[in-house]
């Protein structure tokens, strides 16, 4: 029985399957790392789109009055920037967005955390939130104009009204999503309601709070355009309406680019803060 084990010979008609690097992922080892390749594609795709856009307009395939070429938009941008107008527009809009954001987000978080933490608060606020959330925030604009007059306050409040719901709903959901075991541990170790608020509800809900914050800031950029249609002397939204009045569509595109840049920068900043505050999620 003490025979050396000999593997049986492979039948002549059997196929051999060879697994070598690249066989599973389908990616051959290349000179570029995956990260470098992705970076090139990320930067390249919008640049490619801009180039295509430029060519289509210059070739006269579309009416350049309604779709100006990127180079024309850049020209318009420099004109506006050099007069200092663009700076005033940007400053006015940023002020309204950030003020509205803070005025909406802070109570949104406090109410949301309380709703998640205390069933009684949830019972009281749930119907109110459900009933008022679907009201389009723009519908409030004329009302706010009548109450607060034309000016910054009315615009800030419209933005705040948009921000509060998204943060509130996400924060409450974030608290409710926290597993029961973490409440039990806190209770077992003698946590007061304030301890539970600060050491369980807030950190546990933080990932969803940030989802709410990012949605809110997007909503703020969306609302600023409508809010600045009346009662503003400056603002990126105002720039669009002024461009409409003077029929300078290139300026409108300048505003579009600014709005998208603003949204992008806000998101990047919030992502960075999130990465720093919610460290435990990305480990």
């Amino acid at each position: 029985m003490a025979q050396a084990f000999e593997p049986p010979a492979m039948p002549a008609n059997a196929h051999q399957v060879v697994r070598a690097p690249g066989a599973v992922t389908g990616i051959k080892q290349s000179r570029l790392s995956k990260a470098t390749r992705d970076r090139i594609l990320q930067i390249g795709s919008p640049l490619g789109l801009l180039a295509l856009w430029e060519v289509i307009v210059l070739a006269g395939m579309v009416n350049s009055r309604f779709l100006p070429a990127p180079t024309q938009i850049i020209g318009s941008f420099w004109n506006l920037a050099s007069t200092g107008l663009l700076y005033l527009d940007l400053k006015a809009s940023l002020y309204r967005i950030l003020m509205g954001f803070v005025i909406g987000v802070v109570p949104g978080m406090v109410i949301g955390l309380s709703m998640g933490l205390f069933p009684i608060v949830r019972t009281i606020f749930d119907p109110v939130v459900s009933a008022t959330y679907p009201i389009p925030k723009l519908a409030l604009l004329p009302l706010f104009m009548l109450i607060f007059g034309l000016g910054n306050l009315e615009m800030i409040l419209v933005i705040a009204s948009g921000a509060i719901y998204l943060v509130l709903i996400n924060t409450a959901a974030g608290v409710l999503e926290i597993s029961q075991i973490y409440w039990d541990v806190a209770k077992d170790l003698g946590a007061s309601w304030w301890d539970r608020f600060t050491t369980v509800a807030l950190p546990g809900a933080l990932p969803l709070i940030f989802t709410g914050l990012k949605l809110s800031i997007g909503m703020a950029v969306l609302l600023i355009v409508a809010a600045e249609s009346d009662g503003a002397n400056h603002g990126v939204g105002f720039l669009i309406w002024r461009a409409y009045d003077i029929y300078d569509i290139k300026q409108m595109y300048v505003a579009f680019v600014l709005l998208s840049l603003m949204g992008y920068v806000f998101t990047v900043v919030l992502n960075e803060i999130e990465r720093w505050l919610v460290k435990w999620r990305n480990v």
Partner: protein
Amino acid sequence: MVTSLINSEKRQVSIQVKNISKRFKTRKNITEALTNVSVDVKEGEFFCIVGPSGCGKTTLLRILAGLEEQTDGEIILSWHNPERPLSTMVFQEQSAYPWLTVEQNVEYGLRLRKVPKSMRRQITQEWIEKVGLQGFEHHYPGQLSGGMKQRVAIARAFANDPEILLMDEPFANLDEQTKILMQQELIHIWEGNRKTVVFITHSIDEAIMMGDRIMMLTAHPGRVKQVFDIDLPRPRNIAEIRANPHFAELFTGIWGLLKIEVENARIQNGH
């Protein structure tokens, strides 16, 4: 088989459970989880509870912890030093806070009790080392294995230094090797500080290895079936204790009774 330890006779009573019953009301019916459970746990005793699944072991422990309230009966706990917490629980499921580092988790109870920072750090470090997590102080639970997370929860409970430690199948979700290591660690730690421990397990082996006494509950609803004295010598060693002929004797005796309850539980579930 049923002999008492002389020193356990003399000790004071730490937990008096008097005729505890627990009924859960749902919309349709009332479920009885515990019926007339009475037992005394002595000061410094390692008290194990076994019973078939669904017999109300965890409910009893949660009632002892004050996380749930009994429907009937009374519990009297002796609290000697009000500066120390009365009881702390180690839960069966993963309970280390994912948003706190190992160090912050272990010191959480102390922080809630407003223990000064320098003292907190010292106690925390001591327990991190005792459970073998040194070097992982600043890691988050998400970076740790299941066994390490459970060690965080155990260190958190011990660092809190309660008079009574309540443990609900703390090793149930660990792999076999880690479990043996943790059992040995716990025996070692406990033999060093002799706290009152109420320890739930579904493993007879574990109960015999760890405990001074074992209380067996019947199948649903839980009633006290019998209380066994485990008169194995201490200090105990997990590897050697199984070889003790008395261990096998205890196991056979306890399993003989538990088997009946497990079968009862299965018949109930079959309905």
